[in-house]
């Protein structure tokens, strides 16, 4: 079992880590047995889907069964190790996987699809530069009003961040900054 993967820091997302682990695992370079090779493939593909907000409700259960079979049926120790590591991660980081799947959030802020962009009301001067930059018209506001990003329109491209000279636009993971839901007049 790979101990490093069971001692992740706050900055590491278990979904992303498991995806990369499966992708670069020995089994992915071998192909001599179905459970090792195709198991690694399914782990990688499923993790990738989860990071991309394309998870399925059955994913956890299916992967647990798969990993159990990988441990039992792989041709050599490598496949067994991959199955064991994945099983342990699915167990230890169950909350993170669940958050990705259900609440659709990535606590470590690694999975791009789960981060959100916000305009800090204290810093926004209501210049409107960000509005011009956003190709998806996701930013609401007018001159001298605190601008607000419509999360249902935002595609997380992040372009607005550099458009704001006041550094009022920030990226957020699980913890979101507070702010108005509709544009309100600037205080400054």
């Amino acid at each position, binding site marked *: 079992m790979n101990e490093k993967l069971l001692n992740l820091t706050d900055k590491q997302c278990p979904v992303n880590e498991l995806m990369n682990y499966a992708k670069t695992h020995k089994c992915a370079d071998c192909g*001599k047995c179905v459970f090792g090779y195709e198991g690694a493939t399914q782990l990688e593909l499923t993790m990738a889907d989860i990071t991309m907000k394309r998870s399925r409700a059955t994913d956890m259960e299916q992967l647990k069964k798969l990993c159990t079979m990988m441990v039992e049926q792989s041709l050599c120790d490598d496949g067994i190790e991959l199955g064991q590591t994945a099983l342990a991660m699915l167990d230890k980081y169950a909350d993170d996987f669940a958050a990705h799947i259900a609440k659709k959030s990535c606590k470590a802020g690694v999975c791009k699809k789960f981060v959100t962009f916000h305009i800090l009301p204290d810093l926004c001067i209501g210049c409107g530069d960000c509005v011009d930059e956003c190709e998806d018209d996701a930013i609401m506001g007018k001159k001298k009003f605190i601008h607000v990003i419509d999360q249902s329109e935002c595609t997380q491209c992040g372009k607005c961040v550099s458009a704001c000279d006041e550094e009022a636009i920030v990226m957020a993971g699980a913890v979101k900054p507070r702010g108005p839901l509709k544009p309100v007049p600037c205080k400054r």
Partner: protein
Amino acid sequence: MIKLTIDGKTVEAREGQSVLHAALDAGIYIPHLCDHPDLEAKGGCRLCSVSINGDAAAVPSCTTIVEEGMVVNTKSEAAEAVRRTSMELMLATHPSECTGCPKFGKCELQSLYQVMGVNGEDWRLKPRIVPTDEKNPLISHLFTRCVRCGRCIRACQDKRGVKVLDYVRDASGIHAGIPEGKSLIDAGCRFCGACIEVCPTGSIVDAVGLMEKYPSYADNVVPCSAECPAHIDIPAYIRAIREGRPGDAVAIIREKVPFPLVLGHICNHLCETGCKRGNINDPMGIRNLKRYAVEHDEEQAWKAKGFMKERTGKRVAVVGSGPCGLTAAYYLNKLGHDVTVLEKRPQLGGPMTSGIPAYRLPLEDVMEEIQYILDSGVKAEVNCTVTDVAALKKDYDAVLVAVGVSKGKKLPLPGADFKQVYTAMDVLADNRANKDMSYLGDTVCVIGAGSVGYDVARSLVRKGMTVNLACLEQADKILADMDDQTEGAEEGINLLPGRSFEAIEGTPDKVTGLRIHTVLSSTYDRATGKVTEVVEEGSQTVVPCDSVVFATGQHTGLQEFDNFGIELNERGFPVLDGFNTSMDGVFAAGDAITGISFVIKAIQQGRLVTAAIDRYLGGDGEIAETLCERSADPHIGRIEGFGKLERVEQTLRAADERVKDELDVYHTYSCDQAKCEAERCLQCDLRLQFTPVKLWSEYGGAN
């Protein structure tokens, strides 16, 4: 024997046998894919999972060895779950459509997922697209369909020892392939086809069109033997030559033909047109190797082998002693019948001794093979023309008419009846009999440039004559084989292709020339027999000559007899039902029924009619015999540069030398040449050693 229980059934197994094969042998089907009966089991696919002695975890039955008292459950929940999951996982990365796959309907994977009722749709789908490679000769690679079972790799590496195939990685993932992106030739492939034979999917397949020529699988795999009219076991005799056993090679050839040396000289080698080596560079020198084998067969061990049945007391007359008649006589005698061959000429052999010139077929070589037939008990009478078959039939239980087509035909030209106008048949017979041929004069025109026309022309060049060889066909459509054409040209034949013939000039007693014109193109209508020409204007000319020889077709000559006794058609060929003529007990075969053909075809006709006559006389018609036991090492190993080995040709004597005599124009292969040439063979037959893998449906679907 070891006793164990599989699915409640007591089964006996060999010690050391796998549970999978113990079950399959007992008629209990367990799905399996990466296992192949002739390759080491690896246990990679897990489709063969079973539970042993009630253990919780399923194990692969292919790598589990039987033990006394073992209790196997092939359908336990654990085993079924593993099996289904494995199949689902494989299908998740496999093309979803089977239609259009070359293996459709014959694919083990397809058969398995159909019977298991499984698909990959619960999983993340990811086709692994690998570009199809059809640039290699004989073998197509479609690794998009590879399931990484490793069977081809084990076959190529372990079974064959060639080590071309391995697991390779590209952007799509891992699949079987040739490392470093090499071509098969550059990687040292021996084109043995083992990989094709064992691949359970449509990933490694015979190149398009290769397996559709004949109805039988074996014929498609070994096309040389399929093309040979007598179906000689060509790869086996080439192998014997390579391994330094020319005597065995002759025995193998003699299982099918009593004239190996004649064929080694003059066979038209249809086998070589089918030979798969021809798809790589040039076909094998199959005919030349045959000659080599006979000429190096010191011990002639085949003489002591083969069947000789009890005498039946039945008498058979064979009319005509060409290759068909003598072949039939040889086998009929072996079947126990008393055979008498009746030949109208002073010498036995038909066209072998009175047609084909000595520079292609030395007389002593033919006579040696005929002598063996006589030594085996066949009686023969020469100078004996049969004119009434009904009278002959009174003295015999059966008669075979194998008179060939020994009468030449002339075209109906003005002057064709002049004194110095001859047919090829007569000229060739005189030539073979060493007669004085000065009656032809100094300059001769030969009409017709088929094999017979060339025989005449090349023979007369050897008599010091000036020879014009004219034919209607354009230069690139000439019927004779290429060797005749190039060698004839070297020997000084003046070829006049694309010519049409108007008349023979001169008087009935003195030919002075042949009037011809040039045709730019011509078409022949089979139905009406009419030739339409596009004539080159002003091309009419007279080729001066002292005589004209027609090599424009032959017939049986039977219609020249008042009452031969069997019904003939308007062209003088016997009316037939199979090999039976209109008279009970009288059979016909060979060129006399097929029209002019090749020696090997006549021999095969002789074999076939033998069976018919034997059955008529109360026998079983069986003439198959084994004169040499076969063995072939599947481990062929590597030969550097195998795909680039060039065809070895026999040494051709210099033209100015060979026109001075009647001796064979070729020198037979040296031992080294023969071995080099034999080494080039792909041994296509080795593929057939593999145990055919049965699809689920072929187990009777009992489970």
